């Protein structure tokens, strides 16, 4: 159950629109089913009342949309940001990707998002409705009158299982209060892979990455991937490619994708959320984050606007590359 209700959010957003502070709101729009929520720009109170949703399936991070949205008009846009989204928000500001003055950031408290894929693994296909019921989700299907009761904690999306922070890193106002930076276990999975033998690691990633269909969803959704022309789309880069033609191309794409956001990735988890093949892409990004923390000191991208990213910084006493590999667990 989310701390703040849809009703309260709408009321506040309506006020903001009425005050003329903002002329539009970037929020979540309801879909055909409970879980297929779409990012949408709302321009009126009526529209908000009819279509705005807030609940366990509002995973989409709006930070990246602000680049496009703020360029459209001089009026302020209100944006709803969950705690993890605010880190991306700050990171984009650090990189001067949009004008802070044109944004009114509304932080919403988040209790974690559910993963429909995990739900379907329990209930099967044919979901007709999902109702929030305290700490549970009641999932109704067209095959049964009675709902399947699922504990939300059992179907939390991957990134929420190891939530790094319930504290908003940026906001103009908060709805539902603020939380704390959490002592997250998000590097456990990475450590598990590091502990494997070289052959096991190779086999693991071979299995994961071979599913890639190069739809580019991970890249296009990533708030840190904001190049105007990606090397993979640029015929002059020498590495333009559209298809996972073989194992090499798969690895090339994913290593470069993760590397390019290394030090800038806030670990928002959008890449893994959107992957149609459910490749745990966040484990690549987290590896870089973990290494950066181990080699160059704790760093959380997007925590502070204007912080210097580790890859555009150095220390004379930095670890030598040959000593780095395998020394991640200091």
């Amino acid at each position, binding site marked *: 159950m989310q701390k703040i209700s849809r009703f309260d959010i709408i009321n506040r957003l309506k006020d903001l629109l009425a005050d003329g502070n903002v002329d539009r709101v970037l929020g979540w729009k309801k879909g055909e089913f409970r879980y297929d929520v*779409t990012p949408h720009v709302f321009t009126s109170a009526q529209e908000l009342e009819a279509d705005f949703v807030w609940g366990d399936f509002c995973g989409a991070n709006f930070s990246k949309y602000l680049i496009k949205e703020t360029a459209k008009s001089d009026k302020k846009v209100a944006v709803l940001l969950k705690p993890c989204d605010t880190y991306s928000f700050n990171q984009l500001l650090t990189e001067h990707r949009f004008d802070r003055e044109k944004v009114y950031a509304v932080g919403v408290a988040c209790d974690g998002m559910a993963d429909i894929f995990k739900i379907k693994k329990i209930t099967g296909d044919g979901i007709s409705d999902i109702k929030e019921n305290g700490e549970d989700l009641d999932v109704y299907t067209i095959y049964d009158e009675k709902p399947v009761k699922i504990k939300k904690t059992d179907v939390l999306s991957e990134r929420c299982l190891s939530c790094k922070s319930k504290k908003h890193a940026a906001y103009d106002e908060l709805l539902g209060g603020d939380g704390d930076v959490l002592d997250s276990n998000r590097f456990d999975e990475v450590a598990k892979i590091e502990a494997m033998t070289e052959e096991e690691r190779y086999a693991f990633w071979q299995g994961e990455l071979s599913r890639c269909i190069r739809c580019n969803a991970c890249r296009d959704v990533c708030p840190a991937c904001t190049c105007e022309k990606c090397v993979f789309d640029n015929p002059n880069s020498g590495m333009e490619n559209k298809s996972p033609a073989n194992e090499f191309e798969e690895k090339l794409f994913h290593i470069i994708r993760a590397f390019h956001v290394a030090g800038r990735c806030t670990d928002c988890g959008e890449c893994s959320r959107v992957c149609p093949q459910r490749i745990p892409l966040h484990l690549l990004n987290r590896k870089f984050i973990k290494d950066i923390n181990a080699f160059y000191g704790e760093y959380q991208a997007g925590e502070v606007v204007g912080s210097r990213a580790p890859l555009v910084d150095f220390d004379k006493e930095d670890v030598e590359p040959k000593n780095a590999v395998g020394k991640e667990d200091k």
Partner: protein
Amino acid sequence: MYKIKISDLPALFDKLSEKYDVFLPVDFDNGAKYKKYEKGDVLSEKLNTVKSPKDFFFPQTEDMMRFKTEGKKIDVIDIREPKDDFIVFGVTECDVKSFEVLDNVFLSEPADTYYAEKRAHGVLISRACSKPSETCFCKTYGIDPSEPSGDISTWKADGTLYLRPNTDKGEAVISVISGILTEADDDEVNKEKEKINKILDRLPLKNLTTEGFGAGKTAELFDRPEWAGLSQSCLGCGTCTFVCPTCQCYDIRDFKTNDGVIRYRCWDSCMYSEFTKMSAGQPRLTQKERFRQRFMHKLVYYPENNGGLYSCVGCGRCLQSCPISMNIVKVMKALGGKNE
């Protein structure tokens, strides 16, 4: 009509794989996926595989030819090898119908020989959808998932699999396994069909119609203001086009190896910004035009060129995969129906 106990399916697959390469949907951690049958593989209960079976006929990447160059000389080398017969098992009716859509494109003159060769050697064994998903809307296009077509149709009922060959190719396959099949009548299958049809009436998208779309609707739909709102949060990734069983756009590219050039084709997506880009300009400038192209193509342009047939089969894959959950159903609901 023939039948075999579900518990005897491994024997059936073993027998078939002696003669054919058999591909069937198998459950993996990340969803169902077509896989070449190996002993011990179990047919998935899930109807939708993440990727559609179009892969077998129109693979994501396909080498077409090689070039050897020496000085100013070029040598074109045909690298196609003869294809063996293969079976794709457990294809749902929407996916079977997707081949009709692809055939109209690839087999129309001049035929695409790469695709045609695979179609000639592929045997489609379909299956009735006993447990459709909430995202299914094949009925919208008049597709009947209780009456699957393909070379052989199958139904699952009461621990038994019923098989009915529909074509010569299908008969040939049946003759390979006839030793382990027994003859059956239609009763159980008819009961199963009835059951399926009752379920179809409970599907949430059962009332979706194609009203407002189809041949001749270009002028009416092209400049509708709704496109801007529908496409505003589209990321421009290619997920919908890559999981779609009917999307068929491709790119032809060259890869320079250390020894000549491979010309290959790979799936492309109208959602990509460089799709139509040329030195002279770009006719589809923003994501709105690209987004509109995809749906106009499926719902208007394709039917215009193919006797009213829509190039969507209602499999629902894009509903499940789109990162922002924008999809053809939402587009049809926003633009279709009666226009006031």
